[in-house]
């Protein structure tokens, strides 16, 4: 390998991308040629300087914390600020879910149950209310016929008569 050939593969030589045969040939040339040896050393110096320069920036603690949280479920950071898994006794067994999660689940189930219990009571009266958008006189006649309350009275200022005590 001569100087011209060596300079052509200098990057590959530095980056260890040459075949073993070509690398041996390049190494032999570097040992013999002082100019090419200097070029190789200078390229290595550039690499070293780049590494030193880049190594100066350390990641801020905020970023480290944010990245560490990525792989953790959201509830863990909310309920266990220290980030440690808490083991809770449930039905005689140790489980890793934190106790507050059970509390939240329990509240959720209770809330859902309350909603289901209240729903039939609230839906019953709506069946007897008609959504008649006709005039008040027409509404009164249908009201008398069907026994349903005509909501259009609210729009016509008939609220007072609606709530009058029955004679």
């Amino acid at each position: 390998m001569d100087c011209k050939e060596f300079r052509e593969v200098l990057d590959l030589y530095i980056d260890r991308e040459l075949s073993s045969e070509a690398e041996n040939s390049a190494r032999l040339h570097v040992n013999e040629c002082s100019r090419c040896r200097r070029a190789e050393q200078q390229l290595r110096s550039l690499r070293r300087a780049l590494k030193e320069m880049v190594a100066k920036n350390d990641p801020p603690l905020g970023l480290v914390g944010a990245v560490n949280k990525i792989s953790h479920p959201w509830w863990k950071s909310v309920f266990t600020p220290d980030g440690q898994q808490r083991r809770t006794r449930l039905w005689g067994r140790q489980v890793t879910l934190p106790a507050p999660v059970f509390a939240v689940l329990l509240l959720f189930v209770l809330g859902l149950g309350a909603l289901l219990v209240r729903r039939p009571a609230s839906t019953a009266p709506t069946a007897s209310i008609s959504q008649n958008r006709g005039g008040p006189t027409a509404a009164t006649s249908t009201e008398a016929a069907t026994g349903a309350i005509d909501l259009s009275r609210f729009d016509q200022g008939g609220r007072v008569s609606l709530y009058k005590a029955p004679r």
Partner: protein
Amino acid sequence: MPRKRTTFEQIAVPHLAGVYRFACQFTAKERAQDLVQETYLRAWKYFDSFRTDTNCRSWLYRILHNVWRDAAHRQRLEIPLIDDEAAGIEPYYDWEEEFWRDELSENLAAALSQLPEVYRWAVLLADVEELSYQEIATVMDCPIGTVMSRVNRGRRTLASLLLTSRINPANELDEVIGKISKE
């Protein structure tokens, strides 16, 4: 899930410092934090598709490259298109003699920031991260021949920028970049 989390923490999170330092070479530190956080969010999202017997570091750099490219497109920043194949590999380094007399790192940061970004990616991946050309090609999503010419041309351009910054401090760096790009 706990196993995925443990593996992620063992093989992906330890590269955080390296990924952050790398990102700092392409943008301001505050913006670099956003890039890194987005990189790790994507890494966690797609961690199931990562093969643990492959190089996690180059996988993370590939994600970082995609995140950086997406961010550049969002901000309508134009990534310079350089015909690397046409540029070829320059056989000689012509900055041997006077170049190395002083402390090298003095103007290196400024010169590196002036280096076109595709060259900066290639040079930093090769010199700082010491990835193989095949890994760099995967990270940058380009043929291996393009990686060779980018590494070669990037180093030469960086050296020219350093040399110019010593001879003509700060003024003529843009001229050098334009001149080298036209070559």
